[in-house]
């Protein structure tokens, strides 16, 4: 087990970067059209609660990582099996982010560059980061994540002349159902994916901050998305947003006089990079834990190879990608993001009550 320590600030930055991730590329909010802001608020609050649950699980099982929690609560065999499933889930998630990023880049700027090449170069940078250890990833995120809101605000300020501030009206045009659906999709992507942080929580140096930091980063990302959503809808109008393949790209192209699109690429590179790095770290650490290897670095390269191949293999075309992210992902994620964590929470609470009971009995 790595003896790395990350500070609360680093955890906050990592989480924020992770949550920002590739969410802008495949925005689950779009389906709610004008009411996206409602969906963001509902999903954001739900996401904060979910993160609270994950943090509580980590706090109830101090200094244990996810695999150890699974093993101690569910037994060795079942625990290992579930951990193996999670390895798949994180690898899958990482490859999806790769694909989203690659699709975005090849659609908007690099029309003739093959998808594989962009993904591979991205992967090499990430393997360098992950092999440097979670401490280094934390430090890098501390430097780079603050760039994300800065760029978002920069683009928004440049667009201020063409805003239509009533664009989000009317409220609840199509009823509450699409909003709830979008909010749920938003909950599973990106908030539920932070289950991978259960592998990183043990590294936090001040454990008492854990819940506060997670909730804070979830809320600030919700705020950021709200801001970006209002920017997009006021600049483009709901019709346009629904039509566009990649909304943030169009927003950045609209700025009069200059085109800030490369900045947007940087933003997505940072967010996506942190997300993939965390997923890869979580997957390889879990695998190392299951197999009983002492160092997760032994598996980073191989898992990354698999991620890259999977990311190319997984979809045939871009519509499949969108369809999957909208329709299948939220349901596919239920067991990983909600069922198993809730079971763990309940089991941990029971265990804790028991120990406190026995403690009091002994006294």
């Amino acid at each position, binding site marked *: 087990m790595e003896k790395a320590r990350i500070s609360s600030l680093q955890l906050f930055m990592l989480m924020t970067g992770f949550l920002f991730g590739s969410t802008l590329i495949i925005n689950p909010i779009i389906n709610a059209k004008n009411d996206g802001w409602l969906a963001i608020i509902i999903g954001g609050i739900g996401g904060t609660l979910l993160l609270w649950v994950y943090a509580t699980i980590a706090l109830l099982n101090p200094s244990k990582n996810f695999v150890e929690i699974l093993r101690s609560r569910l037994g060795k065999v079942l625990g290992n099996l579930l951990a193996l499933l999670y390895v798949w889930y994180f690898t899958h998630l990482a490859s999806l982010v790769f694909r989203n990023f690659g699709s975005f880049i090849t659609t908007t*700027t*690099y029309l003739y560059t093959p998808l594989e090449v962009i993904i591979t*170069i*991205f992967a090499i940078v990430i393997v360098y980061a992950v092999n440097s250890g979670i401490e280094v990833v934390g*430090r*890098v995120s*501390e430097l780079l994540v603050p760039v994300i809101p800065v760029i978002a605000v920069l683009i928004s300020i440049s667009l201020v002349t063409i805003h239509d501030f009533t664009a989000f009206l009317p409220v609840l045009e199509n009823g509450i159902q699409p909003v709830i659906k979008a909010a749920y999709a938003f909950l599973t992507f990106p908030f539920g994916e932070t289950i991978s942080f259960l592998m990183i929580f043990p590294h936090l140096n001040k454990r008492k901050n854990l819940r506060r930091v997670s909730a804070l980063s979830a809320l600030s990302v919700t705020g950021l998305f709200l801001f970006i959503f209002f920017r997009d809808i006021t600049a483009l109008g709901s019709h346009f947003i629904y039509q566009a393949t990649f909304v943030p790209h169009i927003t950045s192209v609209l700025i009069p006089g200059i085109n800030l699109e490369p900045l947007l690429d940087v933003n997505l*590179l940072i967010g996506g*990079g942190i997300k993939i790095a965390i997923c890869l770290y979580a997957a390889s650490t879990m695998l190392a834990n299951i197999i009983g290897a002492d160092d997760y670095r032994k598996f980073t390269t191989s898992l990354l190879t698999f991620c890259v191949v999977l990311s190319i293999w997984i979809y045939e075309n871009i519509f499949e990608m969108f369809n999957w992210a909208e329709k299948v992902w939220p349901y596919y994620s239920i067991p990983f993001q909600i069922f198993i964590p809730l079971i763990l929470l309940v089991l941990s609470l029971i265990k804790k009550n028991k120990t406190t009971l026995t403690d009091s009995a002994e006294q």
Partner: protein
Amino acid sequence: MFRKIKRHLRLGKQQINIDTIYTGIDEPLPKNIEKVKKRLDEIFSGCDDFIQRQMVCGEDECIRILVSYIDGLVDKNILNRDIIRPVIDYLSSKQAHDEPKLVYQRIKECVVSSSDFEEIQSMQQAVYKIVSGDAVLFVDGVKDALAVNVKTMQGRQIDEPDTEISIRGPREGFVENLATNMMLIRKRIKSPNLKFEIIQLGVQTKTDVCICYIKGIANEEIVKEVRKRLKKIKTDAILDTGYIEQYITDNRLTLFPIVGNTEKCDKLVAKLLEGRVAILCDGTPYIITVPYIFIESIQTSDDYYDHAFFASFMRLLRSFALIISNLLPAMYVALVSFHHTVIPIKLMITLAASRQGIPFSPFVEAVLMITAFELLREAGVRMPRTIGQALSIVGAIVLGEASVAAGIASNLMVIVVAITAICSFVVPPLIRATMLLRFAFLVAANFLGFLGISFVAVAVFIHLCRLRSFGIPYMAPFSPLTASDIKDSLGVVPIWAMLTRPKILFPENTKDTVGIKRQEVDEISED
């Protein structure tokens, strides 16, 4: 591949270590002065600058005294004044004793008028003292000998260093002589807490290397680590602190400087007072300081002497220049060959028109021009100063005028290279790193445009975050964020507002005011 080379190098060094020059003379000094003389002549055979002066006196010439030294290393005037004359005076005077032991005692206690002498027992010590410039005085029939410091103080005058020019502040720079350098530091810090620890390094050269720190400010752990790493050095020669630098760095495969060096007294003293450890080396004016973090590269001593607003602006300007000097050619290539959509039309027309008729791709053009510039720079450094003028004229004409007129390079490229060159000189410690990174960025830009640049930039960031200098993260105080140290990073607060020492160095005393209790270092280290 590299590992193999390293292994070979390591083997080679070990072989050198076996034959030290001092093996074979590890013996006590003989009592008989003739034997001493003969042995020394044997050891220094072929050294015509080795001189032995014998003085004989007393009844039956029973008192015989031998002074051995190396001509040129000792100051003859001092030698005559402090040793030869008093000894002869004493011997020819009436108080002279007959007993060699008493004579030796007498000479030691009240004849030799030097303040700095040492008693030695072995031949090895005697030889070492002789080669380091002492005169060694042997008395026949006595086992001990007296090494008197009569070193000549010849060397360069203290003057302003050429490499680090400052507009304001002291102009004294270090010189090659270790004692002078120590004096220069001591002169500025009048405190017994300023410690100098001298050790000898280099099997052949036996160079004096001195660890300098302020006890109570510098972290003991770092001092210990410096000692440990210095002791590990096994090499033939230490000719410059550059040698030491390469042995003690944390990461040998990095482009970035993770050990600092300076030639300016005031700068070094400021660093010592911040809690850094300095390593001085005899024979070089460059003194290295550890730990060294990234932000030190854009700091200059002028920043602290000047008004804080101006200094902060200069800091920002320097960081901007650093980015420009790394990225500008790459940005140009990316713009011209990838991101046509980004360029406004008017600029586009200018760009396209200036590129018209150029046979090379922007990448090749950039590489050619930058290489030409680097050559020019290198030639300017190596060349005798008198031809400098000619070179700059040739360079200006070739780079600026002729290449454009001949249609080899575009106008804009010349401007880009010129701006890059100017910017690269703004941050001297990073010139080397920038020079190579610039090419990496160029290749990336030619391959994937801005995306490629971002990839390489992120890789560089990761590398920077990985680096540590004596355990201190290189990118501190930004990552890990140390809020109290931001005061002296991209901006700088006035000197009266700098209440605490840099926490990132875990100084023993974080407060500048002396006497306040030591802070909890562990707590800081976790932040």
